[in-house]
């Protein structure tokens, strides 16, 4: 398996594949049936149309089966969503503030940056606020986002598994330079992060999540 930046990515991509897979089957089924009928029952062939008013059994089938399918989609979507909502007790917390048109980050030791630095393999918790209008904190590579709203604190959790740089975008329209409101999250190894952080950030060996 190719390395993924967070374990949550795998489960989101699975939900995506599951829903798209079923959808493609349904789409092709409906389209192929329609095209087949148009050729098979073409008026040029000259057979008499038959008035069929309906079929209760068929109506039940095409209500019940899609119901089961969408319930399963709901279930997978929900359980995957739970992963980012169950707040780990000992996560490394960073305060994020959005303003037109930049993000800023504040760490527990008082350090402040424009780019988010986090250690690998540690649950990260973002406490997110806005200083003006609505923004949204979006890390496409991690498949997560949450709005940032003035007067309200929203939360986002992730556990990076791969060292690297990932784009962060503002995903809620916020005016003139909305499309320039990008930054990066830099995932560092434990050693590098300690060096950068310049102090103890209390890595707890036992807590590394799944």
């Amino acid at each position: 398996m190719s390395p993924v930046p967070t374990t949550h990515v795998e489960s989101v991509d699975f939900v995506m594949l599951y829903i798209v897979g079923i959808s493609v089957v349904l789409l092709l089924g409906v389209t192929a049936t329609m095209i087949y009928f148009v050729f098979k029952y073409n008026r040029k062939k000259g057979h008499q149309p038959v008035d069929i008013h309906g079929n209760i059994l068929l109506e039940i089938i095409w209500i019940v089966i899609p119901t089961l399918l969408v319930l399963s989609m709901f279930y997978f979507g929900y359980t995957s969503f739970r992963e980012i909502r169950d707040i780990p007790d000992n996560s490394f917390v960073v305060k994020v503030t959005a303003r037109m048109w930049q993000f800023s980050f504040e760490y527990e030791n008082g350090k402040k940056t424009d780019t988010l630095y986090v250690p690998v393999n540690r649950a990260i918790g973002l406490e997110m606020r806005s200083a003006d209008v609505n923004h949204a904190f979006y890390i496409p590579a991690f498949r997560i986002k949450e709005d940032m709203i003035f007067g309200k604190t929203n939360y986002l959790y992730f556990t990076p598994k791969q060292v690297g740089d990932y784009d962060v975008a503002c995903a809620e329209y916020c005016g003139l330079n909305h499309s320039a409101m990008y930054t990066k999250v830099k995932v560092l190894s434990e050693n590098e992060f300690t060096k950068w952080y310049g102090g103890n950030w209390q890595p707890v060996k036992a807590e590394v999540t799944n």
Partner: protein
Amino acid sequence: MADTVAGLPVQHAEKSFYQQSTNKYSGILSWLLTTDHKRIGIMYLAAIGFFFFVGAVIGLLMRLELIAPGRQIMDAQTYNSFFTLHGVIMIFLFIIPGLPAIFGNFFLPIQIGARDVAFPRLNLLSWYIYMIGAALVLVSLFLPGGPIDTGWTFYIPYSVRSTTNVSMAIFAAFVLGFSSILTGINFVTTTHRLRAPGMSFFKMPLFVWATYATAWIQIIATPVIGITILLVIIERLFGVGIFDPALGGDPILFQHMFWIYSHPAVYIMILPAMGVVSEIIPTFARRTIFGYKAIAMSSLAIAFVGYLVWAHHMFTSGMSDTARWIFSLLTFIVALPSGVKIFNWVATMYKGSIDPQPPFLWVMNFIFLFSIGGLTGLVLGSLATNIHLHDTYFVVAHFHYVMFGGTGTIFFAAMHYWFPKMFGKMYNIKLARIAVLLFFVGFNLLYFPKFIMGYMGMPRRYYDYLPQFEALQEISTVGSWIVVGTLFFILGYLIHALLKGKKATSNPWGGVTLEWHIASPPSMENFAEIPTVTREPYDFSQLKEMKNE
């Protein structure tokens, strides 16, 4: 037969509604003061069609800007105003009023065997209110402050901070809402009170059912946006602090109120289109609709459940997890009645006698594009994927497949289906077939890449983008040229048909609902004598007798 459904045989000397005035005036005043539902429908067609092209050209310019990263033809402020205007025009001036105001006005009374809507003068007033709303949108562009730049959703707090003409533009939406409400009241009353003798609810054509269900949403949901807009205007003018958090208000409350209207509004947009599909398929398959009651009831089910899913637009807003899963579950439920319709439509083709004329080709186009739109809605209904895809191009692609691929495609289907009835002229069938094909290719080029870009993480409402999106953005822009080119192509051959087309017969497709029993174009009174209905709506055994009329 003739005395049971068709009223009197068509009299060739009878004047069409174009030649008869409902008032003492002739010329332009006979139109501007008319109370005839058909003339009002045509007036809506002219106005709505105009704004559709304006919206499309704005979209074309946006795509041109996005052909490469960085600045191409406009600055960021202009782009932000453009996507706002594109949304406002397409939603409030085209797609919400579109099908009900044009085709509902023209055909709902005829299909139930009535001479007009229940309140003809109110109907004319609705048109004027629409025109005033549209004029306000246009005026707001040129006043100091400049065109609105908040996005069509005008989320607070940005919409109270923006120095552009937000108040006037959203007041236009407020005014347009009244046009929608009054049209809804008119259609509900017409459906209840003016059905011809024998036309029971379950003998009504499915377009009437769909327009009827839509009318209820227009009446019940639209006042919520009216209230919300007034509150925003009060907030902007007096700084009251209802929604603006800086004044102690709640911006999430605004989002709830906005979507309590704007999600049901999605069904105002799509339900009448579904009604048109249910008309076209039986006519060209020349057999009765499969599952009449299932289709009729699914319209009501969509209208009802459609009220209960609004917060799926807010899964990343920081709502409670409980609210998120409940709205996710309800969202999946609302997909089911749409699925029921698709299955019944395809089943209606089974053992038919199918003649794939242009209106039917548009419907085939619709079934494919709308299915993609609906199925990608499942991806967005699911919480985990929604968190990733919310406010990205994936959403943009999804709702264009639903709105443009769905309702827009059916707007063309309805246009091609009823054109000979409305204007008494026939267009060039060969050109019309080419148009369907061109549209299909252009549409998928334009919007399918947006699904991929969305999953790659391209946020929507972006003036500029990262280099990895360039190739897909280019493909999308090329698609926009084909789509807009096709729109002008369609406009061209329809206008040509209007001026120089062959005269259409009263029933060119072999339809059996009541509009095909009367002349093309119809007379002012529609029916010389109100028909008595004895047959179900899609009973094609009467076709032979109709030919003898």
